[in-house]
């Protein structure tokens, strides 16, 4: 009973991805570029070297986590548009705690991560509380909270006492807070010598390869466990599916909404922390939303709100973002083509009916 359903969801996703790439190819053709050339540049830009793969993973990491955040909320009946804001709050927290609270590495990293998760959780639970207490639609409140987070971030980052002189960003976090693999060693003479001797590792060490991806996978497993194996997940899902029945069954639906948004917010906050401690090492003033949260919505959609699906979808999106950006300088086709492909994929996934219809007609033709 269950399996065909799952398969068809996966099938729809794969068909949507193919359709997205196909539409992208058509558009490339239409504006005068060779799509095969463009896609091979992209593929080569993703798989061409270990370094590219490392970058792809670095690109995928934050959006896997924001994707998990959106997917978790969605599983519990809430639409978390606020992943963006929760990400910003988490990133800012990581940058501040990573610089101002010196600690030994073994303590500092978990401390930074926990602080960011907490900050993201609190940010998310504001929307949960507003919904539980006053019935404010979480879509509206999280959109608002995104902007508040953005300006809060700029308020802190641009504060004379906080910002790094001559920049629009905070001070770089301390080495003890970084999750970048061998960050100090790889720049030391020892490390340099090792890198000379081992081109494979040198390739990886040229990128800020970091533990973020492992953290993201851990988070995905955790989300999977919470949703499917715990009483918490059981009750949150029940509220998501049918809050009347859940309420009747004695589940406190108000506190469920708040916990659900808090967990979703924590995941997005973690995304921000991982990005700062693993890559950017600072929080910068934002002229506009960076889009990690919104990309998370796409990831969750493509991943069918399944935690493992989010990991795969995040990698896919990350690969497209990183590899796709190489199309422009090489053959001149605009980078926007990547956004078009992603948009098309999401659009097709959002209308599974169309694909099912296509399947039915195909079946008929086959008969």
């Amino acid at each position: 009973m269950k399996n065909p359903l799952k398969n068809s969801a996966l099938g729809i996703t794969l068909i949507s991805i193919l359709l997205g790439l196909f539409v992208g190819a058509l558009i490339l053709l239409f504006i005068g570029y060779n799509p095969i050339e463009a896609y091979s540049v992209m593929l080569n830009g993703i798989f061409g070297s270990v370094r590219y793969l490392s970058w792809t993973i670095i690109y995928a990491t934050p959006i896997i986590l924001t994707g998990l955040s959106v997917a978790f909320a969605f599983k519990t009946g809430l639409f978390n548009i606020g992943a963006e804001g929760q990400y910003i709050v988490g990133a800012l927290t990581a940058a501040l705690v990573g610089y101002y609270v010196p600690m030994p590495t073994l303590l500092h990293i978990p401390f930074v991560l926990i602080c960011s998760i907490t900050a993201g959780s609190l940010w998310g639970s504001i929307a949960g509380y507003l919904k539980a207490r006053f019935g404010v639609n979480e879509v509206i409140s999280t959109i608002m909270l995104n902007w508040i987070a953005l300006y809060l971030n700029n308020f802190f980052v641009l504060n004379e006492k906080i910002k790094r002189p001559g920049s629009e960003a905070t001070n770089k976090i301390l080495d003890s807070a970084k999750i970048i693999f061998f960050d100090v060693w790889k720049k030391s003479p020892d490390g340099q010598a090792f890198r000379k001797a081992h081109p494979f590792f040198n390739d990886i060490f040229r990128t800020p390869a970091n533990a973020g991806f492992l953290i993201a996978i851990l988070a995905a497993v955790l989300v999977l466990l919470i949703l499917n194996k715990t009483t918490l997940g059981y009750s949150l899902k029940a509220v998501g599916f049918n809050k009347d029945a859940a309420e009747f069954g004695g589940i406190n639906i108000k506190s469920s909404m708040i916990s659900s948004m808090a967990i979703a917010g924590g995941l997005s906050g973690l995304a921000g922390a991982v990005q700062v401690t693993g890559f950017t090492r600072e929080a910068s003033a934002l002229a506009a939303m960076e889009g990690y949260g919104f990309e998370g919505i796409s990831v969750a959609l493509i991943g069918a709100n399944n935690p493992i699906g989010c990991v795969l979808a995040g990698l896919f999106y990350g690969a497209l973002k990183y590899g796709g950006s190489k199309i422009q300088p090489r053959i001149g086709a605009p980078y926007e083509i990547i956004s078009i492909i992603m948009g098309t994929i999401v659009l097709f996934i959002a209308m599974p009916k169309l694909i099912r219809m296509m399947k039915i007609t195909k079946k008929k033709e086959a008969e």
Partner: protein
Amino acid sequence: MKKLSILLAVVFALTLVGCNKQKAEVAAPAEEKPMEVVKTSVVMVTDVGGVNDQSFNQSAWEGLQKAQKDLDINVSYKESKQNADYMPNMESVLDDGNDLIWGIGFMMADAILEAAQNNPDQYYAIIDNAYEDTPSNLVGVVFEAEQASYLVGYIAGRMTQTGKVGFIGGIKFFLIEEFEYGFKAGVKQAGADIEVFTQYAESFTDAAKGKSIANSMYQQGADIIFHAAGGVGNGLIEAAKEQGKWAIGVDRDQNDLAPDNVLTSAMKRVDNGIYNLSKELAEGNFPGGTTVAYGLAEGGVGIAPTSSKHVPADILAEVEMLEKKIIAGEFVVPNTADTLAAYKVVDLK
């Protein structure tokens, strides 16, 4: 059913073979490419504004395109969408084998410096940043924006009828403050008792905020407002249009946005800067390890050519005189609060 699946398998296998072939065909010329390249190639990496930002990224790309035509070099660009893109973008343009890599905008200062340190054999250059200690393969290009600001400040001071003018900045930091102090010095030159309203929008994109700041300055009696605030300035120009007041543009000649209301613009010729340096590179004279300042003398900054539309000839003549004095080094235009305080009015005769 069985037959069908066999058929499908065969078709699938065939397409796979087909794909491989195609791939091989495409891959081959790609490998040969670097061998063919003998031309100098220059690439620029934009900041998050993107290549069509109506501002310095766009101007930079125009400069590169001009260089492509005049100097017969290869040019390309790579856009950054997020702050996190700077580092990987630097890397991937490095992989492409370019002779010179440009970073457009001071936001990329760290990424460029790191890349230059890691790849000592590669030339880099950056717009709008001066390093304290510049590696020998890197050039910082800065613009003496205070000089152009000074000239438009003088025009504003001479033309105001209310004795009040305004300055709207984007985000308050040294690059933008240079505009402010240069402008204020120019106003001071025109008349010591002219009041200058100053406000920073804390944004480079929020046009609505720009408009509301402009409206309130106009209400307080200002009749000419200068901005150094990117997209925020679009709000100012809109307000000027609605209220029938003057606005002064920045970076490029913004008169096209409101022909009857943009009095003049303090131009910053990023295109010229890019063009000149690319030319020096092509000629084998890359000034690595230095910071190049483009001022009035080098044609790196200046007032807009459309200024003559609205500014009377006698004032323009005075402006020209001041410009000559600056080029001749008779005085230095202030670019900080301290130098502004110390500024003494120049005798025009």
